């Protein structure tokens, strides 16, 4: 990757992929936003709670919502379910993220409406796009 946005970060001609971050760790939100924007995605919002995430997902219609599984007292799985069942957000791609182990969570991710899981340390524009490309039509 270079200093210019990755061409792959543009799912539609001329328009970068838009994403919303939902995570209760402010330090992670800042780092993730910087990285993803630098790699060519457009971060349209960052939410610290499930409720705020739900609200922003409805109002800003991002292509992808990145949802932390452990949202303080809330569950990222519940938010994913809520986004999938709400008519306004049902078309949005949800990707679950966590610092916890992928193989511990694999089964729960499988059972959720999310398209997939990303370990937080492996977050990048490329990995998000790859999951976005694999969403079911």
């Amino acid at each position, binding site marked *: 990757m270079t200093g210019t946005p990755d061409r792959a970060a543009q799912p539609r001609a001329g328009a970068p992929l838009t994403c919303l971050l939902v995570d209760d*760790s402010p330090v992670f939100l800042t780092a993730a936003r*910087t990285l993803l924007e*630098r790699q060519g995605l457009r971060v349209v919002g960052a939410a610290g709670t499930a409720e705020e995430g739900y609200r922003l997902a409805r109002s800003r219609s991002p292509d992808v919502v990145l949802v932390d599984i452990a949202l303080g007292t809330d*569950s990222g799985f519940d938010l994913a379910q809520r986004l999938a069942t709400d008519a306004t957000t049902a078309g949005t791609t949800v990707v679950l993220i966590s610092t916890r182990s992928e193989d511990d969570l694999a*089964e729960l991710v499988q059972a959720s409406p999310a398209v997939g899981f990303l370990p*937080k340390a492996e*977050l990048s524009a490329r990995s998000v796009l790859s999951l976005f490309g694999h969403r079911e039509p």
Partner: protein
Amino acid sequence: MGDEARAGDALRRLVEAQATYRRLASLVAEGAPPAELFQAFAGELGELLPRGVVAMSRYGEDGKLHPVGTWSHEGDSSGTDAAMAPVTARPGGQGPGRPAPGAGAEPASPGPPATVQVPIEVEGRPWGAMAIWSADAALPVDADERLREFASLMATIIANAGSRAALAASRARIVAASDEARRRIERDLHDGAQQRLVSLALALRAAEAKVPAEDAELRSELSAVADGLTELLDELRSIARGVHPAVLDTGGLGPALRALGRRSPVPVQLDVASGRYPEQLEVSVYYVVSEALTNVAKHANASFVRVEVAVHDRALHVIVADDGVGGARLQAGSGLVGLRDRVEAVGGSLELHSLPGGGTSLEALMPLPGS
């Protein structure tokens, strides 16, 4: 009565009291419920003393005595039913009334007493009282003395039962406190150190993305540091999981045990009853399976492990059985001893069956609350 006869009497009483003590002590050891114990105490007392009603009461939080057990010679053909009726059904009236709490021996009429009550003191504190009402005109002259002996015997048994219950409760609290501390440490690691490390790794990747294409050396250095951070995160994640399996909180036993199965180098066949159980039980089941699978991988030389978690008779049954070399033992220093302590702390039991050449099976049984 001559000296010999008196000595014989005393000896007989001692033998009877010893036999009684053994019967009651074994009931206590079997963990009989309090109500059953009180009935047994009163019944034994009834056997030792002449026909009548025996009652035991205990001080409640209101400072008053509340009956906890009564016993009578019902079915006696003596025709003195009135005197045999349950204590609570005798509000005054003819015959011996109910003695006042702690009043001690109080004759209902001149002459030998028909009613005796003595206090029960457990470890120096008033606990309750025992009383007898005679169906005959009078109680034997030594009734008070015998009742006191019995009350003291019972106080010892009650104190022992109390110590036992206190010990079990304290053991359960220690395990619960340790689980809670481990859960907190895992959460602190997750919310604190892990988030910060992940963020640093992402910040490095962001910096890396800004390096001009021609500076390949700087780019590869940054990349190496970010990779190192990612490895460190993996290590920290595995430590955190060892401290507390957070997946239990999210998904319960099924996903947690299946994840253990996937990490096991020996193929695992899992059969886990669905449903959620109290936290402490889920954590205990997880540790039993985790420790057993670790042992299988290390020592069993097995080709196959079967893990089964099922609910029978209001208890969780866990079996981990392999087809390996067997010969495992529950010995000091083995992780299994700590595991047995944990399982016993929740009122369960842990058994190891492992004959040389016959494979090893570890079985745990943990009662569900309310059983």
